[in-house]
């Protein structure tokens, strides 16, 4: 009983860590559960590359949930991840129109369809952004990535990109951002 409570508190801590981009948390979850997911996929028509893709996508689902703040772990983390991966893998097999085996249930599963629907929707939006980014071209793309993704400060960026001062870089950054915004919303309207 004591160990269960302890492991649950541990798992909650892990998920909180995940939400704060704690690398240690990612490593721990990865280490504990990757093997299980890999077995599931390898035993059902997949390769280790597939296992890696599926597990990482499941991790993103978990990350999104942890970020939303409303995540209550109603089951063991293991069960949750297993259920998500199983669902994702079935979907992938369907898309590839491969022979769909009766996935041998090694573990118990919980319904995760709602979470995955949300994940799909978010994924769609993120891909729109990625597409917009890709069609932005250089140096805009690198400039925006440096500021918004790598969170570098403007002085540093100005130095790296060869702008004479931070204000010029900043101005250029806003111009790029305007272009990205246009590209994104065009994409956004097309999709809806």
């Amino acid at each position: 009983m004591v160990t269960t409570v302890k492991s649950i508190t541990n798992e909650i801590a892990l998920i909180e860590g995940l939400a704060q981009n704690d690398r240690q948390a990612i490593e721990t979850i990865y280490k504990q559960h990757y093997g299980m997911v890999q077995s599931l996929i390898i035993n059902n028509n997949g390769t280790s590359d597939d296992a890696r893709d599926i597990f990482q996508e499941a991790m993103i689902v978990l990350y999104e949930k942890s970020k939303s703040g409303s995540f209550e772990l109603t089951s063991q983390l293991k069960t949750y991840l297993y259920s998500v991966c199983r669902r994702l893998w079935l979907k992938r097999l369907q898309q590839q129109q491969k022979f769909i085996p009766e996935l041998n249930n090694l573990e118990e599963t919980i319904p995760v369809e709602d979470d995955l629907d949300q994940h799909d929707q978010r994924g769609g939006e993120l891909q729109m952004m990625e597409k917009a980014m890709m069609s932005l071209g250089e140096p805009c793309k690198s400039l925006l990535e440096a500021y918004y993704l790598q969170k570098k400060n403007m002085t540093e960026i100005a130095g790296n990109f060869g702008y004479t001062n931070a204000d010029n870089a900043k101005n250029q950054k806003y111009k790029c951002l305007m272009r990205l915004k246009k590209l994104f919303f065009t994409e956004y309207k097309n999709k809806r």
Partner: protein
Amino acid sequence: MEEIQVLEAVERYIRGEMSREEMTFFEELRKTNPEVDQLVVEQTMFYNQLGNFGEWKNFKTALHDVHNQLLERGDIKEEAPKAIVRELWRKYKRVMAVAATIAGVTTLLIATSVSLYTSKQSDAKIQQLSYDLRREVKNSKTEVLNTVDQKIKISKAPENTTPKIGGTGFLIDGKGYLITNAHVVNKATSIILLNSKGQEFRAKVIHINTESDLAIIKIEDEDYKSIGTLPYSIRKTGAELGEQLFTLGYPRNEIVYNEGYMSSKTGFKDDSMTCQIGVPANPGNSGGPVFNKNGEVIGIINTRLTGADGVVFAVTSKNIFSVLEDVKKEDTSTKHVKLPLISSLKNLERTQQIKKIEDCVFMVKSYY
């Protein structure tokens, strides 16, 4: 306020980088100016999207790094795909046995039925000697450009169409009646004939007899002038084995001469309606006349054996008589058609014979 300034302001607003006074001013502006307010909402959404995108990308990179790191440290291992063949074999052993049996039985059945029906299906082995003109369209066009008179005369062909099947035909009555193969014209909606001088004539089908593979067509064109008595004759009886033969036909846009001999009095699979001749023939020769040395038509080329060299079959000339009789019964306008029975080509040099014959042999182009 310019959009770019709003963008900057919103960014600072979201990040909480504004001073208190600035914040109050900005919020006041939003309240009074709906346009700015709309921009702020839009920017905020976009900004959030961008933020999410950044996090997502960073998280993905982190996952990637962790994976590689753990792999390096040996904390996780990449398994090789499982070989499931043996498992499948165990599972489906019986099914496979049944399948193999069925396959075996089917093979036997097919083999038996093939050997039973081969004699009937053997037509597949002989090739009709008409040819697909669609392939030739480009060539014919270039030739048209080479000779001026052909260019003018090509206009008789139906507009915007290309001939589909080409063969040969020859006159059996100087008034414009020709014999060709049924398979050359049986699908045609219109027929254009071309003589050795390159003149074009319109023609129509009078009668088709698929059994003997013969067709009678008639030239219906004011440009055509009756030739009068034909130089050659059509023979009622068959040729003798070993008789010297020659043919004229249109395997290409030019009339082509070939010679050979009588090989067999019967055709493919002992068919008595046809005979075998040892004369080279190619697609396009279909419907062409086969003459003996006296200039008598003894047959009409129709097929050749595929996979064997120089085995060509011709419909024997006596079939022309029976087909014409059939036509006369159903079409009174053909009553006056008379087959030529006397050849004026006896004892002439071959080149002389050809000169006299070639005006009576036409290229047949079928359009549909």
